[in-house]
Every structure is written in C-alpha cells, then in structure tokens.
C-alpha cells in the first residue's frame, strides 16, 4: 500500500513540473541564462584594462588620457557616460563617447584619429578604445540617462538621428524602426527593445557597450550600430560618423531616465 501512495505522489510531482515547464516561455529561459552569466561578466576584464589604459602614458606625445574632457570637465569620468552624446565647444561637434575619446587621443596623445577610424573593429587602437569604453561606462553604472538638449546642434542631431532611424532603404527596404519601432518584436528568440521610447532600465540604449558571449568581445555602441547597418545591408557608415552619433543622440534622449547597466552582457 505504501508503495502505491509513493507512486501516486511521484506521479503528481511529475505532472506539476511538466505544467511548470510549459509555462516558462523562451524569453524567460533567455533571462535565466543571462542571470546565470551576469555574475561572471567578462566585461570586468575589459574594465580593468580600460582603467589602466586611461592612466597609462601612451602615444607619440607619451601622455595619459587623465586630462580628457568627457563633458563634465577635464578628467571627470564618473557620470560622463550617461550624458553622452553631447555638444563640445572645443570641437564644435556633437560627440559620443567613442568620437570624444578619438579627439582626446589626437589632441592629448598625438595619435592620428584617421588611422584609428580606419582600423578594423577589435584590432590595434580600436581594441584599446573598446576597453576604455568598458571602464568609462562602468563608472556610470546605475546612473540614469540624461542627455543634454540645450544646444541647437544637439537638437539638430536628435532630428537627424530620428530621420536616420526611420529611413527605409537597401535591398530589404529596412529601417531601424522596422525592428526597433514597436514593442514586442523579436528576431528569432531575442526580444527587441522599442528604441523610439524608453524601453526600460538596462534595456536598449542603456545596455551598450556590452560583452558579447557569441564573439567573446566587448562591443561599443559604434560597433553595435555598424552591425545594425550591416544586417540591413546598408553601406558601412564609418566609425564615429555623423549619422551614428546622431542615432546615439536620438536613442539616448529617448532613453531619458533609464538606468545604465553598461557594460552589460549579451548573448
């Protein structure tokens, strides 16, 4: 008799776990996978490298980047990331983190920014910028996005970014908005954030730069945008080009108030 009761109990347990398994959706499983990986985010390794690079004397002039002005005054790193891209008086341009770093590397350290722009992603100085980006963004972790929109150039960049976001072209007649203009869209099993508004804390704009497990590399926003253009079969927009920076302004302003989790972890 006792064995029979045990059998029934086992059967009940089996039925209820099967029911649970059905309730768990694919996106839950991905969220679980992300949570498992989040503790050992290899972006930490890039952060450590980035901090070292920031303080290290390098380049033809043998100077460190410690006097670099990221928008909050020379050498201020904390909080700078959540206010980028923004307008800079010295260059007269709206710049994102990566184009600003290029300016600093040119003016302070004496690097030729053209050479760096033409270096492939993940190679040479480009790889160094990715580490720098990891560290600088990590210094603003948990802060909320608040991009300035006071300057005319910043407003223009927002409008330009908006146009670029909705611009349909290429063999697929795609625009950024095709995938990121509505809620609840996905590619295969990946949920896509709606970048026309604030999709939530730590999603969309607030989740880059990120470590990509699939490639084992840290991707900055410029590289991420380049991949979007590639997937749409658009021509390569160029590293730190006006259009990529403008898209950064558009997404960043839309993400106002979102909490930055960068450098995040991506599949």
């Amino acid at each position: 008799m006792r064995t029979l009761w045990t059998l029934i109990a086992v059967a009940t347990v089996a039925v209820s776990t099967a029911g649970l398994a059905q309730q768990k959706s694919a996106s839950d499983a991905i969220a679980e996978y992300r949570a498992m990986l989040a503790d050992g985010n290899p972006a930490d390794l890039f952060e450590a490298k980035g901090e070292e690079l920031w303080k290290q004397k390098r380049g033809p002039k043998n100077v460190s980047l410690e006097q670099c002005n990221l928008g909050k005054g020379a050498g201020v790193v904390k909080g700078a990331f959540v206010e980028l891209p923004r307008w800079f008086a010295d260059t007269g341009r709206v710049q994102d983190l990566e184009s600003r770093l290029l300016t600093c590397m040119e003016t302070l350290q004496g690097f030729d920014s053209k050479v760096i722009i033409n270096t492939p992603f993940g190679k040479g100085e480009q790889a160094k910028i990715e580490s720098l980006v990891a560290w600088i963004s990590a210094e603003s972790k948990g802060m909320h996005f608040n991009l300035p929109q006071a300057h005319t150039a910043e407003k223009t960049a927002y409008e330009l970014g908006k146009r670029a976001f909705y611009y349909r072209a290429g063999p697929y007649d795609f625009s950024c908005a095709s995938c990121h203009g509505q809620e609840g869209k996905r590619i295969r099993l990946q949920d896509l954030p709606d970048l026309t508004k604030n999709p939530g804390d730590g999603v969309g704009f607030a989740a880059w730069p990120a470590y990509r497990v699939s490639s084992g590399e840290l991707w900055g926003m410029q590289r991420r945008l380049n991949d979007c253009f590639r997937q749409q079969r658009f021509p390569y927009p160029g590293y730190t080009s006006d259009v990529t920076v403008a898209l950064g302004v558009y997404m960043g302003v839309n993400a106002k108030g979102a909490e930055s989790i960068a450098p995040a972890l991506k599949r």
Partner: protein
Amino acid sequence: MADPMRIRAQAAGDKATVRVLMSHEMETGLRKDASGKAIPAWYIQEVTAQLNGKTVMTAQWGPSVAKNPFLQFSVKGAKAGDKITMSWIDNKGEKRTDEATVS
C-alpha cells in the same frame, strides 16, 4: 604576459565562495582564419586553487571551455583574511598566477 585574473572571494558561514574570471583566448584548434588556415589550439590546461598556500583544487581543462572563462567554487573552512591563490597553465606553457584575500 597574459592579462590578470579577476578574483572575488567572499566568506559566508563555514565556507567561502570564490569567483574567478580569466582572460584567455581559449582557441579550440578547430577554427579557421579568413585565409582558410586552421588557428592553432591555445587553451588553459590546468587550473590550481590554493588556500593560504595549500592546494585545495586542481582542474584539468580542455578546448571546450569558453573564451574568457568564469570559474566559481566554494572552499570549506576559508575565513575572511585568508589568501586565495589561483594559477593556470595553458597548452603553450604560458602561466598566470593571481592572489586575492577572502572578504
């Protein structure tokens, strides 16, 4: 010289949880580069953990471990202030050793 590891060790109760991030390419030897030539295998073969100089764990690793591997384990009897030493050797004979204090 390989990049340093990131080691975090936290004591809770009678054991300490150790989390280690290692910076390594972990090439399997099965991938090919753009010109079609095989990329030579390059991966961590042995990982050793020491608590105050005494070996508490060794692990044999192979090419199936991910790039920039993350390792987590717990050590019985480790208290705050104890020293955790992690070392690895890869198949090219390169080595790296890093230390952390249990907090």
